[in-house]
């Protein structure tokens, strides 16, 4: 018959031991990666992708070629995950109401109003050059969402709602989702697989130029639109949610 104190102690001991074991394994893994980073790590999948991806997809960024061509179906799954999270956030938090009018100081607002157009260059570059340079639709889309959040935080939720209405965010997310699924069917109609790229007859173009990679730039644009609209609408739902069970205090 063991007392609760001993049981709690044993549970904590076991949990601590497991955590220690896991973190030790992780440290070993990281040190191993650090030791190998100068050499090339031979793997089975590396050689075919790096050798053939430019010729097969027309995209010189191998990561984007894998994400948007070879594993485009998985990318569709990721987009579905974001869609589901937006739907759950909207269902739990409810319709965004009572936008607060708190803004940043005058100096920050004036500075941001001059700098914001420049900030938009980076995500658009990352999205449109996804098949040429590191990045792609996902990274650029999240950057766009962060910029929308910046507008909301700096200029107040009411101004953000005026400039980028929530309806437009929702519409662009639905549109991008339908576009992603619809482009996939082109591959089937052309007698190939779902979300096929060059095999479905999309022009490959000259590798290294902006208009290359077949359907990859279009998929990047749609994924970027979808991610940006989804994540920023999560923020809009969160910011418009009234705090519950909190004693109102003046700050």
């Amino acid at each position, binding site marked *: 018959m063991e007392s609760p104190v001993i049981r709690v102690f044993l549970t904590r001991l076991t949990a601590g031991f497991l955590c220690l074991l896991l973190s030790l394994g992780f440290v070993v893994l990281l040190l191993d*990666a650090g030791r190998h980073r100068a050499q090339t790590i031979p793997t089975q999948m590396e050689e075919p992708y790096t050798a053939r991806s430019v010729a097969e997809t027309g995209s010189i960024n191998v990561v984007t070629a894998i994400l948007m061509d070879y594993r485009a179906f998985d990318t569709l799954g990721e987009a579905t995950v974001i869609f589901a999270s937006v739907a759950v956030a909207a269902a739990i938090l409810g319709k965004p109401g009572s936008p607060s009018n708190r803004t940043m100081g005058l100096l920050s607002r004036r500075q941001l109003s001059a700098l914001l157009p420049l900030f938009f260059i980076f995500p658009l570059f990352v999205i449109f050059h996804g098949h040429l340079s590191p990045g792609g639709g996902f990274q650029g889309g*999240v950057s766009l969402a962060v910029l929308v959040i910046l507008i909301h935080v700096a200029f107040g939720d009411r101004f953000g709602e005026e400039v980028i209405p929530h309806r437009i965010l929702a519409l662009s997310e639905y549109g991008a989702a339908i576009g992603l699924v619809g482009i996939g069917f082109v591959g089937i109609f052309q007698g190939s697989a779902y979300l096929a790229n060059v095999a479905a007859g999309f022009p490959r173009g000259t590798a290294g130029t902006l208009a290359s990679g077949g359907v990859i730039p279009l998929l990047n644009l749609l994924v970027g639109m979808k991610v940006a609209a989804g994540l920023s609408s999560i923020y809009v739902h*969160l910011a418009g*949610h009234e705090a519950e069970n909190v004693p109102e205090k003046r700050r």
Partner: protein
Amino acid sequence: MALDIAFYLILAAILVSAFAAIHVRGHLNAVIILSVFSVLTTVKFTFLQAVDVAMAEAVIGAGLMTALFVTAISKTRKRTWRAR
């Protein structure tokens, strides 16, 4: 070998910041330290020449997650906004 030493220093800093994010007092402090963790992880990914992942980690971990967490904290417990 200076680059190697810098890499191991960054790995150690990642461990320290991860422990600090768990054990620090105050939700807001934990969120800020978590974004520091993300920035260090970004540097690590850049060292390992995974620039795509580094970009995603920087944008999501340091940008979006911090904004969402801070908003959520400000919506739930107003008292944690004050310095503790």
